[in-house]
């Protein structure tokens, strides 16, 4: 499409300007998506070059270094010890000792089992004396995979530490050559609360994240390539093993094996994904606009008791969701208060199918979510609304703008600009909003066609509740759950990437300081 210069653009009529802006926006999307791939490629290139540089640096350190440095390539910390940095040297040496001991005693075994995930499963043995059968448990696939992953982490940590050890030798040589003194152990301790203070502060949180988030995620990604489920739990029932891409093929396959009555996994996944996106869209934007509306109503000049109105709404945040959501779900039930009230008043003859009919259930879920979300949005938007410079409104009023114009020309653009990133996180948060769906409906009403896939799939099930259901019960197809989890990640990451690259208002964080 034709690109106008600024002057040409100003000459256009109002409608054409708008049209131009919109088309330019959509035309720019493919370009921006392309930009993402280019950035990814550049990242890979950067990493490759960094690795090359590191290798070259290690090599030159070895060639040009003195004998202390050369010994340090084998005995970590030797250079530190020989140059008088006892504390650092001992720590390096200790780490190397622990690593070698671990690899010899356990790590080697786990690594050797990792390709097969266990060779001998549980066996039935006959006891001649007692004349009974008993089970002997042998390899444990779960532990092999878990400790295998841990060992890989440990090896990476070791390589990194080894690299640090070499770099320190190089630096120590340089410092000594220039005639300065090296840092003593006391200096090191002091720097941990001073210029290296960030390392002290972050060591605990990052260890937690590494062990309880990164490692489980790596583990679960690997599970997607195995057949780990209730019948193959890796120890008590059967071993599990690698199956390659089979699980992804199952999940993304449109073909149905047994006749036409059963729905394929891919179709089920598509249905659930479509509803998840629909839900996230409505949940985010209904809350956003209605919450803003309520905030503006309370903020309006001449409204008294502002604090009371806010407190009433905010109070509902305090009450645990499992109480309010479970209770509301019973209120809408067939024999619940709302149906009872409507029938007592004689407005309806039969109970309304709030949770029984797919469309009703979906709408009720969204409406209940408004009830949950408005107080929160009200709080967020109140703060921002008050930050809009009031002279903007005054000059608009003098120019004769009516309230609606003021809203669309001042309030809304400002809000959208400031809350752009929030809207994105709230959208992806809603995609994974387990609580509201699970406590309200549990996914009901059941979708009979889709339920041929793993778990019982309902019309209000999100991907995340479906994932949860797959892991429950005796079948517990963990491998499918982790495939779903990976796909959720892909969808969320794609949406975030595109929005982040298309949104104009991703601000520089330093602007706030």
């Amino acid at each position, binding site marked *: 499409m034709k690109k106008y210069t600024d002057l040409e653009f100003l000459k256009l009529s109002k409608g054409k300007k708008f049209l131009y802006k919109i088309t330019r926006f959509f035309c720019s999307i493919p370009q921006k998506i392309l930009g993402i791939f280019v950035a990814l490629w550049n990242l890979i290139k950067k990493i490759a070059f960094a690795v090359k540089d590191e290798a070259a640096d290690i090599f030159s350190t070895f060639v040009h270094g003195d004998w202390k440095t050369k010994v340090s390539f084998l005995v970590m910390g030797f250079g530190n010890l020989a140059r008088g940095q006892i504390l650092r040297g001992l720590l390096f040496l200790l780490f190397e000792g622990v690593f070698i001991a671990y690899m010899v005693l356990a790590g080697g075994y786990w690594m050797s089992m990792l390709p097969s995930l266990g060779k001998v499963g549980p066996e039935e043995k006959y006891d001649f004396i007692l004349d009974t059968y008993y089970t002997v448990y042998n390899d444990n696939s779960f532990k092999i995979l878990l400790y295998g992953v841990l060992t890989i982490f440990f090896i990476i940590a070791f390589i990194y530490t080894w690299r640090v050890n070499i770099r320190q030798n190089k630096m120590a040589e340089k410092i000594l050559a220039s005639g300065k003194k090296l840092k003593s152990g006391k200096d090191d301790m002091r720097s941990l*609360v*001073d*210029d290296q*203070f*960030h390392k002290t*502060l*972050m060591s*605990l*949180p990052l260890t*937690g*994240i590494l062990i*309880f*988030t990164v490692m*489980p*995620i790596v583990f679960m990604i690997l599970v997607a390539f195995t057949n780990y489920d209730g019948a193959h739990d890796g120890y008590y029932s059967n071993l599990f093993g690698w199956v390659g891409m089979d699980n992804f093929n199952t999940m993304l396959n449109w073909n149905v094996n047994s006749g036409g009555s059963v729905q394929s996994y891919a179709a089920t996944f598509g249905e659930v994904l479509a509803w998840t996106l629909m839900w996230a869209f409505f949940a985010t934007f209904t809350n956003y606009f209605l919450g803003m509306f*309520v905030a503006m*109503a309370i903020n309006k000049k*001449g*409204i008294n008791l502002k604090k009371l109105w*806010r407190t*009433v*709404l*905010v109070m*509902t945040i*305090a009450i*645990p*969701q499992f*109480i309010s959501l*479970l*209770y509301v779900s*019973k*209120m809408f*039930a067939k024999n619940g*208060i709302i149906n*009872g*009230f409507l029938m*007592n008043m004689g407005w309806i003859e039969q109970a309304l199918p709030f949770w029984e009919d797919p469309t009703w259930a979906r709408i009720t879920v969204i409406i209940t979510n408004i*009830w949950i979300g408005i*107080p929160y949005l009200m*709080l*967020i938007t109140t*703060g921002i609304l008050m930050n809009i410079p009031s002279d903007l409104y005054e000059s608009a009023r003098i120019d004769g703008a009516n309230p609606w114009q003021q809203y669309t020309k001042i309030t809304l653009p400002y809000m959208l600009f400031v809350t752009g*990133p*929030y809207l994105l996180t709230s959208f992806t948060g809603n995609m994974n909003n*387990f*609580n509201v769906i*699970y406590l309200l409906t549990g996914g009901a009403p059941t979708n009979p066609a889709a339920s041929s896939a793993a778990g019982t799939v309902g019309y209000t099930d999100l*991907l*995340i509740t479906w*994932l*949860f259901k797959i892991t429950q019960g005796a079948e517990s197809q963990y491998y499918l*759950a982790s495939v779903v*989890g990976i796909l*959720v*990640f892909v969808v*969320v*990451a794609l949406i*975030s990437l595109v929005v982040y690259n298309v949104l104009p208002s991703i601000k520089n*964080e330093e602007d706030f*300081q």
Partner: protein
Amino acid sequence: MSENNVTAPVKRHMGLKTSRALSNTAIYALLICISVIWLIPFVCILLQSFRVELKGPVGYVLPKQWGFDNYIALFKTDFPRWYVNTFVSALITAVLQTIIVLCMSYTLSRFRFKMRKPLMRFMLILGMFPGMLTMIILYRVLSDLGLTQENAVPGLILVYIASSGMGYYVSKGFFDTIPKSLDEAARVDGATRFQVLKKIILPLSKPIVIYTILTAFMGPWGDYVFAQYISFGTSSGMNVAVGMYRWLNHDQISSSYTMFCAGGVLVAIPVTALFLCLQKYYVEGVTGGAVKG
């Protein structure tokens, strides 16, 4: 002509006034409506917790016969145990999680080191994985350590706090608003980074500390998913959410519905009271930091 000139503005003024009064009345009506809608469920829970005549769900609100039977019945179940479990895990989590979150957010706000940006991006990506997925493995690991079922509380605390470093956004936003020149002035005077944190930043951070404690407390107080996984059907290891959830199952609802309401009241009261006392800080946290995330 001259008359017109005088009356026209007056008329317009009157029109403005009445229209403003009209719109204000409409807004009052709306706000009253909203307040009623938002409060109805809680009033219903409160009223039904006093109902004696029927224990199942019914189509009316006002009890026909009032009494404390449901509250007394609560104490014959495992409810006190669940309550203590919830309280202990929420309290310990609140303290530890606050420390971790503050460490993390302060570091990311104040220090400029090489890995800072990549680290933040990495945590953003980590957050896109559904956290529930990790429960499968954490459950097995914790059960190997003996921290599930009847010993669920320590295991649960571990799960709650371990990854809490990833929730640094709000308090980082707060720290970002404290001028850096304060730190620099103290550094020039010879204070270490640790002293800067202790003597300058922390005294200024009361609102965000309270906000973090409050949210960290409320998380475990109402958590269902993780607690359900880790207690794994063992009543003595459950928290209130998991325990009371079962009362609304098809087979129990007709005998436990009013008990659920009574339990709900007991669970909601302390946290609501705490919340209303500290409301100011909560509002500050949400309006100040949540949006920037």
